[in-house]
C-alpha cells in the first residue's frame, strides 16, 4: 500500500486513492476544501481548483517535485509522495487566490439565499478567503431560466462545479440540462427552458455546493438553522427511502438526502449511495409518511449545529478559551451553565 505524507503526517492508503481522499482519512485541518469534487459522482472534480496542494516529492522512485500545484481530488497518490497543504504558505496564498476568483462574480446575496448556512462557498470564504474583495466592477448577471416547478435555478450564484451535470448523467435517465456558452458567460441551462422532469432530478439540489439550485417547495420558508434535521425512512418503490427531514415545530419544511461531514450524500447500509426520488423529496411532507429514526448527527462546525444545545456550548467554550489566549494552569473547564463566565475559569 502506498505511503503518503501530507503536512508531515504519514498515512498508508489503498492503491488508486487520491490525495484528497488520503487527507480525509487523516482528517482535521489538513483536509483541502473541495467545491466541485463529490466522491459519489464519477469523473467529478478538478474544475474549481480550491483543493490544490503542493507536491514536494512525486514518489519514492521519482522524488522530483511537481512543477505546479495539483488538484488533490484528481491526483492519485504514489508511494513515498510528500504533499504540503496548510504547511505551505504559498499553497494557502494560491488557494486564497482561487477563493477570491470564485467570489468576484458571486452576488453575495446570502441574506436572501436558501442555501445560506449550509453553503460550501460560505464556508470556503470564511475559512480561506480574504476579508475584502479587490474587485470593483459590476458583477456578472444572467437572465433567469425556468427549469421546472420544483427546482429553482439561480445562475448568478453558480460556480460551474459540474456536479449537477454529472448527477443528471449518472443517476437519471437522460440529461436535459448542461453547460451552454463559453468562458465567463458559460451557464447551466436546459437550452430552451425545458423543464427537468424525471424521478431523480431533485438530487441536483443536494449536490449543488452553492445556492444555484434550490428546492422550490422550501423556498423562503425558513433559514436552515431554524429547522431541525431528523433522520427518517419509508418503504419507497423508487429509491432507498433513507432521508433527512427538516422540521420547524411539527411541520416538515423540506426533505433532503442524508449528507456526511463533507457535504456529500451518504451511503446506505448496503453500500449504495442514498440518492432519493422526487416523490420522497417533494410529496411526503407529513410525519405520518415516515418512520423516524432520531435527530441527525451534525458533526461539522456549522450554523445548523448552532441549534444543537450541546454542540453550541462546546463551541462557545472553545471560542472563549481561544479569546482568553490559553487555559490557565490547573484549571478545568466544565461544560454547563456559567462556563462562559471568566470568573468560573479562575476558581
Amino acid at each position, binding site marked *: 500500500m502506498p505511503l503518503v505524507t501530507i503536512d508531515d503526517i504519514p498515512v498508508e492508503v489503498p492503491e488508486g486513492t487520491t490525495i484528497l481522499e488520503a487527507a480525509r482519512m487523516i482528517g482535521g485541518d489538513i483536509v483541502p476544501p473541495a467545491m466541485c469534487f463529490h466522491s459519489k459522482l464519477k469523473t467529478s*472534480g*478538478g*474544475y*474549481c*481548483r*480550491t483543493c*490544490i496542494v503542493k507536491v514536494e516529492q512525486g514518489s519514492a522512485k521519482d522524488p522530483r517535485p511537481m*512543477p*505546479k*500545484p495539483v*488538484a488533490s481530488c*484528481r491526483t492519485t497518490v504514489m508511494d513515498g509522495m510528500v504533499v504540503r497543504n496548510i504547511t505551505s504558505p504559498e499553497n494557502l496564498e*494560491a488557494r486564497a*487566490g*482561487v477563493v*477570491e*476568483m*470564485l467570489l*468576484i*462574480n458571486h452576488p453575495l446575496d446570502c441574506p436572501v439565499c436558501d442555501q445560506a448556512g449550509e453553503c460550501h462557498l460560505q464556508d470556503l470564504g470564511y475559512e480561506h478567503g480574504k476579508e475584502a474583495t*479587490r*474587485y470593483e*466592477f459590476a458583477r456578472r448577471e444572467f437572465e433567469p431560466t425556468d427549469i421546472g416547478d420544483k427546482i429553482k435555478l439561480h445562475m448568478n450564484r453558480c*460556480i*460551474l462545479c459540474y456536479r449537477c451535470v454529472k448527477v443528471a448523467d449518472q443517476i437519471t435517465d437522460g440529461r436535459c440540462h*448542461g*453547460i451552454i*456558452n*463559453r*468562458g*465567463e*458567460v*458559460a451557464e447551466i441551462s436546459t437550452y430552451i427552458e425545458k423543464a427537468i422532469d424525471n424521478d431523480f432530478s431533485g438530487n441536483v439540489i443536494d449536490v449543488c455546493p452553492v445556492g444555484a439550485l434550490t428546492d422550490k417547495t422550501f423556498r423562503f420558508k425558513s433559514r436552515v438553522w431554524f429547522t431541525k434535521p431528523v433522520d427518517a425512512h419509508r418503504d419507497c418503490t423508487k429509491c432507498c427511502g433513507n432521508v433527512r427531514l427538516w422540521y420547524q415545530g411539527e411541520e416538515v419544511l423540506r426533505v433532503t438526502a442524508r449528507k456526511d461531514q463533507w457535504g456529500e450524500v451518504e451511503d446506505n447500509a448496503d453500500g449504495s449511495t442514498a440518492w432519493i426520488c422526487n416523490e420522497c423529496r417533494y410529496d411526503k411532507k407529513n410525519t405520518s409518511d415516515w418512520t423516524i429514526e432520531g435527530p441527525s448527527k451534525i458533526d461539522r462546525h456549522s450554523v445548523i449545529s448552532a441549534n444543537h444545545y450541546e454542540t453550541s456550548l462546546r463551541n462557545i467554550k472553545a471560542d472563549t478559551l481561544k479569546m482568553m489566549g490559553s487555559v490557565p494552569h490547573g484549571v478545568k473547564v466544565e461544560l454547563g451553565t456559567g462556563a462562559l463566565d471568566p470568573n468560573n475559569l479562575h476558581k
Partner: protein
Amino acid sequence: MSKKLLLKNDHIPNINQLAVYRQHGGYAVLENTLKNSNPENVLEEVKKSGLRGRGGAGFPTGLKWSFLARPEGVSRYLVCNADESEPGTFKDRYLMERIPHLLIEGMILSSFALGAKTSYIYIRGEYFYVARILEVAIAEAYAAGLLGKNIMGSGFDHDCYVQVGAGAYICGEETALLESLEGKRGNPRIKPPFPAVAGLYGCPTVVNNVETIAAVVPILELGGDEYAKIGIGKSTGTKLISASGHINKPGVYEIELGLPVEEFIYSEQYCGGIRGGRKLKAVVAGGSSVPILPTELILKTANGEPRLMSYESLGDGGFASGTMLGSGGFIVMDEDTSIVKNLYTFARFYHHESCGQCSPCREGTGWMEKIIHKILDGHGTMQDIDLLWDIQSKIEGKTICPLGEAAAWPVAAAIRHFRSEFESYVQNPENIKDIKHYYRLQN
C-alpha cells in the same frame, strides 16, 4: 542560413495538385519507406533527427511517439492539430494552402510509424477554405492509391479524414481538440491520463502540429542524422516563422533554427527591417501567449550574447529576461506602439476564449481585461498595476490547461518590461485622449 526543407517547392505553380507534387519528388519518400523500411526504423529516424514539436511546447517528437501505448487489439490514432489559433501564427495555414500533399504524405508516414490505421486532421473553423483544399488533396491521394487499403502494394491500410472545428482557441489544446473531435463540448480534459494512453475515443492517440508532421517527410528523405545537423544544438531543423507587425515584409519564412534575431528582423531576405525606418520597440517572439521582450533583450540575451531563433536561445534567462520560441508567431512592434493597448487586445482575446471550466481562468481573464481597460481609459491607479500583477500570478499554473498561462504570461511580461508605460497612463490620463480613435480603428 537559408536552408529550405518544407517550403523548397513553394515557388512551383500548382504544387497543390498531386501530379505536380509527384513530379517534384512528392510521395517518393513514402514509396521508399513503405517498401524498404519498417515502423521501428521510421521512429528511430525521427528520434535521431531531434525534431521538436512545432506547435509551441517544443517537446521532442520521437519521445512523444515512443510514449504511445500499444496494447493488443486496440486502435491507435494520429491526430493532426491544424487548429492554428494562436494570434500571430499563420504558418500552418500557408503550408496547408500551398502544399497540402506534404502534410498528407507526413500523415501517412507518421501513421505508418505509429501503427495508426486512421488519422484525423482537425482544422479550425475559420480555415474552411483550407479544409476544402485538403479534402481535394485527400481525394486525389485516394484515387492514386496513396490512401485507403494496401497503400502502394505494401499491405499498409490507412484512412485520413478532415474535421472542421467550430472556431474556438481552446480546441487547439490537445485534449480539448480530442473532445471536440469526438463531437463533445471542447473542454480540456484533466490529465492524467494523457492522450498517449487514452486519447481519442479512449484509445492511444498522438496529437501533433501540422508543421511537425510535415517535417517527417524531409527527415526521412535526408535521414535523421543529416536532419539533426541542420539548426543549432538541440534546436534541429528548420522552422516556419509567421512574421507580422510593423515590418516591411510580413509573411511566412522558413528559417534554419539558430538564425540571429537581428538578422531575421533586418535582413532583406526576411522581414526587411522596421516599417518606415522607425525604431524597434518590442517583439512577441512566439505567438501572443509568450512573454513580450523589449529591443535590448530580444536582440541580445541578458549576458550580452546575440539572441538566436532557437528554443534555447530565446528561452535564455527564463522569463525574467527571456521568452519562448512557441509556435513561431513573430510579432514586431515599432516605437509608436502602445504596449498597454496591445496588451488589452491580448487580454480581451484570452477573456473571450477561456472555456470557463476552471475558476481562475474563467474569472481571472475577465478581471484582467477590465483592469487594463480601466487603465487605458485613464481611470487607473498605481494599485491597479500591482493588482494586475497579483491576478496573473494567481492564474498562472493553477488551471487545468495551459490557457491560464497563455493569458497570464503576456500580462506579466508587459508589466515586467514596460511598467513605466502603465504608470504613464495612470499619471497622465490626458495623454490618452486618442483612445477614441483606437476604438474606431482610425489612424
